[in-house]
């Protein structure tokens, strides 16, 4: 009897049929968030800042919750911050991330303001380097037509 090979469609990665693994998602910007992804495209992390009281907010919204001004200006920030909280994903819930397991999800608190947090991956880190309060800095990941703000452990002395 001839040996039968599984077709590539039946190969499995992390329990998922290879043909079911999707491309990783890209953001779908809207009128409110367009500035954020365009800034990332040019290597800038932009965060809305209230023109009236100076409060930063993320994710983008339509009003400053501190003073109710609707004048929110996309403003470059340093891209420096520290890990507020993180998790190492051991199980994929989104088939597009099966091959990335284990990967790191984190909330990074930007240095500009207390509680100003961005959800991100921590890229290029050893797992034993990760802890709350570890300094991180922004980097940008190419993903098809977009660049995704990501964070990495900050260079020493940065």
């Amino acid at each position, binding site marked *: 009897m001839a040996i039968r090979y599984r077709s590539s469609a039946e190969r499995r990665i992390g*329990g*998922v049929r290879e043909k*079911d*693994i*999707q*491309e*990783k*998602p*890209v*953001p*779908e*910007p*809207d009128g409110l*968030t367009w500035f954020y992804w365009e800034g990332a495209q040019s290597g800038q992390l932009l965060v809305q800042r209230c023109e009236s009281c100076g409060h930063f907010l*993320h*994710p983008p919204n339509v009003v400053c*919750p501190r003073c109710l001004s609707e004048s929110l200006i996309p403003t470059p920030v340093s891209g420096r911050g520290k890990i*507020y*909280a*993180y*998790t*190492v*994903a*051991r*199980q*994929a*819930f*989104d*088939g*597009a*991330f*099966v091959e*990335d397991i*284990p*990967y790191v*999800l*984190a*909330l990074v608190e930007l240095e500009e303001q207390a*509680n100003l*947090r*961005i*959800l*991100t*991956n921590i890229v290029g880190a050893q797992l034993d380097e990760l*802890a*709350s*309060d570890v300094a991180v800095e922004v980097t940008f990941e190419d*993903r098809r037509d*977009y660049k*995704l703000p990501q964070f990495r452990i900050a260079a020493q002395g940065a």
Partner: protein
Amino acid sequence: MAGLTRPVAIAGVGYSPISRDGQHDIRRLALQACRAALDDAALKPDDIDAIIEYQFGGRGDSPIAVGVQRLLGIKNLHVFNDIMGSGPSGLAGALDAAMAVASGACETALVYRCITRDAGHSGALQTAPIPAAGPAQFSVPYGLGGGIIHSIAMRKQRRIFELGGSNEDYGYVALNSRKWGARNDRAVLRDPLTMDDYLSSRPVADPLVLLDCDYPVSGACAAIITTAERAADMAQPVVLVDAIAYGTGTNPDWIYQDDFLFGGTLDCAHRLWSTSSVSAADVDLAELYDGFTHITISWIEALGFCGIGEFGEWVDEGRCIGPGGSLPLNTHGGQLSEGRIHGLSFVTEAVLQLRGQCGDRQVDGARVGVVSNAHGPQCGAMVLLRP
């Protein structure tokens, strides 16, 4: 009783069978639970003039309120409402019903939570593309998934960093659920757990492990909420709703909330005790949401059973929350053991305990119970009393 304008009671509770597998018609599940609650109170469908239910919304987990009205052949309702997934889980229906009855808008409300394993299984792998639009454009491209699983995992990590404690603290909540669940015929996971079982259970999202997460099931539970005056003439011992409260916290959100560790639990607990006729020291049993072990620990501390960050010491290797302990916790086994019929099941269990109808797991002389649901931006709680 500061929070309610006329005395309100819970006069009936009921359950459908709870299943780990199989396909279930949500109409039948809801009907079974509602019929059981009516029977429990010895009421007929036309005694009901309000129906309120909580569901995820859009996931096909529950029939709408007037759908159940139609099933039961009720001619008209004075109040009906379908509460979508941003409220305090299944407790949301009971909170709304207590307000509707207290206000006089209705007299006798039927509330239920119906859920299927498929709809509730947020840990399932999605192989179809997940849209990254709206708020999701800031999370889906990063691989955040599984409902709130990753956000809860980060809370557990941050809590241990900020407040100390250990994985074992969380383990005692998981072990406790099985101790009680072993005494509950409804519970689907009844085998005892050891700390080794907990610590070696499958990692989901470090430091979150499988046994930190509740268990999706198909089932429904229901309660009948009416005036204390009417309840006194019904079939069961009266259980009063002494206080209700909601809480959101500042900047409410599952990811970006200012108080990431506690969400709205602290605000909710503060409001609850400020309107209740009793205090934390008077509580005989606590039925506190355990969709994840972190949530239960937050509620224990928020409600003031111990200080913030003191759970690990307070729990005394599980002794104080187990059978015979000073604060019997989740006496039905919680959602970790009984299964996730999602929130309202903490109310129905508290009612059965306060009536003294819990058999092997009965907490002797229980007169005061506290119930809480959810976490993050959607907290709710209730104090129940046996007068």
